[in-house]
């Protein structure tokens, strides 16, 4: 009981010191001389404390499949045309992830052989791009294998994350966290932003820009000619124009976009530059269609449709769609960052304004502090000197927990803070058990040191069993629970482990030092 080797004492103090060191970054600001590369571990504040936005986004995987099948239809048409083979009923079958085509009678084998060229193996991919099969009715099915589709979705999610990252970086939000979750979901966390609606718009816009020629031959009120589509205006949803479905120039060939004011009109515009391929296409189209209207389309909506006054060969142009400073800047940012591979939808959203965060912190922090003080006072009144030892251990415990949570990069929410406080309430349980035991031993006639020894020894068994049971329950919760439950379970597990150390080892060290120094005639229990 009394004997602590030098090494052991040193170890205990070292551990406490380490805890203090690790929790320091939460209390003091990062000093200037601290190396950039060195870690500065901090507990992250949850949205309820820092304010900000949490968005759970889901990629529209059906749109990807639809795109892929449309490409496949085009490829099949070209392949069969090149092989001079006739066919009927070429169509996409999205429900079964395949394209169907019916070859002419007697040409089934040749058609199959020709289409076999579509089967490719991308480097690194585990499965073929497509699989061919003949159906009982004689038509050929070109199917996308599920493994290929999964790889494609995964790739699209990665691409979407990169683009979101670029968009958010461009908007000036600090410390965003963007992570994949599950198959097709992306979690975006933006601490401390003040205008969540703007960021939502920035992230949620697909920003696929195309240039399409307006079909001036279409007659209003008549059915649309083949190969045309009717697109609405973005600023006047009830008006629309017939345009050719074929994309003349794709926004993917965009090199740069900047917002500025037009020196003549003073209005906000977006200036763009195309890459060499885009410039050539742009020059060809504009040269062939001088005098005709040319629609600039963003995500299926026409921004504007100016007339082509002269061929544009330089590869740069201007979009003026009645922008404000903000909307022009945002559009330029979206165009620079690139288009999302498929539309994203916001499945879950949580935004907390900075005022609410501050209020919540004030009320929460105050009541947490009061609760903590109440526990200290309670221990002192009910257990005297040994209660004070327990209180010292409790403060050290709080510091150690903060250190552990910082190293793990845990996120601290208000309920998490309440959880920590309650863990502290439970941490003194070990000391209460020990004190009650020592007291019993004193009542049973043991004196001083003997009572301490027996009390500690007996209490350890109880402390062990009760804490291991709780620990096991929370480890199970951690393994099988959903993320928020997990965070809570981790906090409690960390609390149990640190409290075992402080409440038993540290308090024992304090008690033994006190006993050696004072050699009291009776114990204050």
């Amino acid at each position, binding site marked *: 009981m009394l004997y602590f080797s030098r090494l052991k004492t040193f170890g205990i103090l070292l551990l406490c010191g380490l805890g203090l060191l690790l929790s320091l970054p939460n209390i003091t600001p990062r000093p200037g001389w601290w190396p950039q590369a060195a870690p500065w571990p901090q507990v992250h504040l949850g949205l309820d404390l820092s304010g900000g936005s949490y968005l759970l986004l889901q990629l529209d995987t059906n749109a990807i499949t639809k795109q892929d099948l449309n490409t496949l239809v085009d490829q099949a048409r070209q392949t069969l045309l090149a092989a001079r083979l006739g066919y009927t009923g070429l169509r996409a079958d999205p429900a079964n992830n395949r394209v169907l085509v019916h070859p002419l009678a007697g040409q089934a084998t040749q058609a199959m052989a020709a289409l076999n060229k579509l089967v490719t193996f991308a480097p690194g991919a585990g499965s073929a791009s497509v699989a061919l099969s003949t159906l009982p009715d004689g038509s050929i099915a070109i199917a996308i294998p599920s493994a290929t589709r999964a790889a494609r979705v995964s790739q699209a999610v990665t691409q979407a994350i990169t683009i979101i990252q670029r968009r958010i970086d461009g908007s000036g939000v600090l410390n965003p966290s963007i992570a994949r979750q599950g198959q097709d979901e992306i979690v975006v966390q933006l601490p401390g932003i003040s205008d969540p609606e703007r960021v939502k718009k920035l992230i949620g816009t697909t920003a696929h820009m195309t240039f399409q020629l307006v079909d001036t031959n279409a007659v209003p009120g008549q059915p649309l000619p083949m190969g045309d589509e009717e697109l609405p205006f973005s600023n006047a949803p009830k008006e629309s124009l017939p345009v050719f479905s074929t994309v003349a120039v794709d926004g993917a060939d965009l090199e740069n976009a900047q917002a500025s004011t037009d020196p003549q009109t003073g209005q906000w515009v977006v200036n763009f530059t195309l890459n060499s391929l885009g410039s050539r296409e742009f020059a060809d189209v504009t040269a062939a269609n001088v005098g005709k209207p040319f629609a600039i389309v963003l995500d299926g909506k026409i921004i504007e449709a100016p007339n082509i006054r002269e061929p544009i060969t330089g590869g740069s142009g201007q979009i003026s769609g009645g922008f404000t400073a903000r909307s022009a800047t945002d559009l330029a940012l979206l165009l620079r960052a690139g288009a999302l591979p498929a539309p994203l939808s916001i499945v879950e*959203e*949580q935004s907390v304004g900075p005022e*609410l965060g501050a209020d919540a912190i004030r*009320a929460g922090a105050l009541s947490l502090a009061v609760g903590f003080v109440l526990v200290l006072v309670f221990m002192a009144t009910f257990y005297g000197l040994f209660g004070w030892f327990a209180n010292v251990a409790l403060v050290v415990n709080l510091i150690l927990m903060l250190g552990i949570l910082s190293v793990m990069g845990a996120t601290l929410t208000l309920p998490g803070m*309440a959880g920590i*406080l309650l863990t502290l*309430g439970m941490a003194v349980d070990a000391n209460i058990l020990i004190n009650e035991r020592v007291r019993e031993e004193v009542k049973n006639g043991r004196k001083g040191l003997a009572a301490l020894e027996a009390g500690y020894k007996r209490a350890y068994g*109880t402390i062990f069993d009760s*804490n291991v049971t709780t620990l096991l329950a929370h480890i199970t919760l951690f393994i*099988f629970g959903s993320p928020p439950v997990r965070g809570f379970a981790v906090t409690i597990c960390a609390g149990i482990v640190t409290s075992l150390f402080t409440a038993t080892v540290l308090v024992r060290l304090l008690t033994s030092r006190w006993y050696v120094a004072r050699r009291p005639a009776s114990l204050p229990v």
Partner: protein
Amino acid sequence: MFTKPLFRFVPDGTRIRFMNGRFAGLAVSAVLSIGSLILFFHPGLNMGLDFRGGVVLQVETPQPANFSALRGALAEAGLNDAALQAFGTGKNGVLISLESRANAAQTQTAINEAISALNKAAPGSKILSTQAIGASVSATLFAQGLEALGLSFVMILIYIWFRFEWQFAAGAVTTLILDTTKAIGFMVLTRIPFELVTIAAILTIIGYSTNDKVVVYDRVRENLRKYKTLPLRELIDLSINETLNRTLGTSGTVFLAALPLALFGGPALSGFAWIMLFGIVVGTSSSIFIAAPILLFLGEKRLRRTNAPVKK
């Protein structure tokens, strides 16, 4: 205060015959738990946003909120399902909740409509927070939470069985399940919304309650070895009395820690803290009045016979 303790809960040598109240304890518990189960199915939990799906906007109006004007503006915007509720201590806080929409895009449209309706009815209002959760997400979260909770009960069962006897394990887990049902009944009655945070509160009280049961059982186990001839009923009474100061002491500290949160913690924490307070009271009393009697019924003959033959 700096040397000797000032107070104790119960004097040494207290011998309350708790097991005399075993039937009363079990009966009260059974009634409460059955009542809670009925409440769970009807009217059911006040499902919070996390598990119901939908939209909640917390807004602050520049003047004390005019609910009928707000309601009118929201209905005019076609949001007939909007529910309004005051929140916070001032008169300017309003919670606007909307039901879950068919898809994400419609949800976002509804949010925008609600914001513009608000700005029309009370210009200068501030949006303090926005929360939107799809219904499918919430169902998964709920199922996952229940599954994890069930598995952690199994884990407790196995560990206590391993360290004690099966009677102890059965007693502890039965009591924990009863405790949990009562906490749910409490939430139905108080209309505290059931959210992920609430699950955290329930987890904490289960952890606390487990702790409490193990401490009492540990003393029973020790006394079983120490007093070979004492009838189990008296032995359990003795064990509870011996651990009473500890039981009340630990409950007291946790209770004191949670009390300020319940009273002054603000809307984000008070629901959580009230469940905690309720759980502490239930967990402490169930160790004495439920877990111990179950042990007595299950172990009256078996626990004694395995250790030593009962004289008399």
